């Protein structure tokens, strides 16, 4: 099993993602610099990590969405390769148009950094199958602009098509309809604000994030 973590200038969870993937799944993980126009062959998963790519200039994720590597990420996503954007990675996927909607400044204008309880809304996705009958996961969030927004029609479609994957039990940032994570229509591109990479073994306060990585690797 092979995975790649994309490293943008300002990414700060890239190494966390690598270690989490290695420990949770045993995958071989390559770090890919954002200026690289090609990805390693035979990838089962591409992770866009959290952080502050390009210093959040213009809008969170806007500059990273135009990085050379994103052409290869888009092509891989079109071929059905699993892509997971965590936190800033979720913002990048929205800015790149690989996921619908956008992430606004948090409703309370505060950076939120704490463990949250998530409802697993759809456990039939490539990213959640390993949660089995468990309908709840605990992971930390750490964001200032994690307030998911989409127009009503888009939200209805996401809900109707089972594309809402995670919901906050208690909304920490004002996200529309308590949405914490979504997948694209094809089901192979996931964006979520909470950090599975900060919850992959009990010593971190929760191991629930490990199952996300295990799910996607088992689906490969």
């Amino acid at each position, binding site marked *: 099993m092979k995975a790649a973590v994309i490293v943008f200038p300002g990414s700060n969870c890239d190494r966390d993602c690598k270690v989490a993937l290695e420990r949770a799944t045993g995958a071989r993980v390559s770090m890919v610099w954002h200026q690289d126009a090609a990805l390693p062959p035979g990838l089962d998963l591409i992770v866009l990590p959290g952080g502050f790519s390009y210093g959040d200039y*213009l*809008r969170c994720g*806007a500059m990273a969405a*135009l990085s050379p590597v994103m052409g290869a990420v888009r092509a891989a996503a079109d071929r059905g390769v699993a892509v997971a954007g965590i936190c800033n990675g979720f913002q990048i996927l*929205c*800015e790149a148009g690989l996921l*619908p*909607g*956008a992430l*606004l*400044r*948090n*409703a*309370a*204008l505060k950076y939120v950094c704490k463990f949250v309880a998530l409802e697993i809304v759809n456990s039939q996705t490539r990213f959640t199958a390993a949660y089995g009958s468990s309908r709840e996961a605990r992971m930390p969030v750490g964001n200032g602009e994690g307030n998911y*927004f*989409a*127009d009503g029609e888009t939200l209805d479609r996401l809900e109707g098509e089972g594309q809402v994957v995670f919901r906050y039990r208690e909304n920490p940032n*004002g996200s529309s309809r308590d949405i914490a994570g979504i997948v694209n229509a094809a089901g192979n591109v996931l964006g979520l604000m909470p950090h599975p990479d900060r919850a992959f073994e009990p010593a971190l306060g929760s191991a629930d994030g490990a199952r996300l990585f295990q799910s996607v690797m088992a689906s490969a």
Partner: protein
Amino acid sequence: MRAVVQVFLKPGVLDVQGKAVEAALHGLGWSDVSRVRVGRVIELDLAGDDTSQAKARVEAMCEKLLANPVIEGFLVDIPT
């Protein structure tokens, strides 16, 4: 040629910065202030002297990068 772009959150998208600034203005005594919106101004130079062509080019830049059409609207001005 100089172009000035204003980017604001669309009506209907909650502008939490605007709300916070409005509350602060009220706190300073300007209690009649309402509907504060906080946006962004981007200025840039363009080659050529065809104003309408320049405006169309900057609007294309807004669609692609300078604004996020999901949440933001924009105004392009080419001051003479």
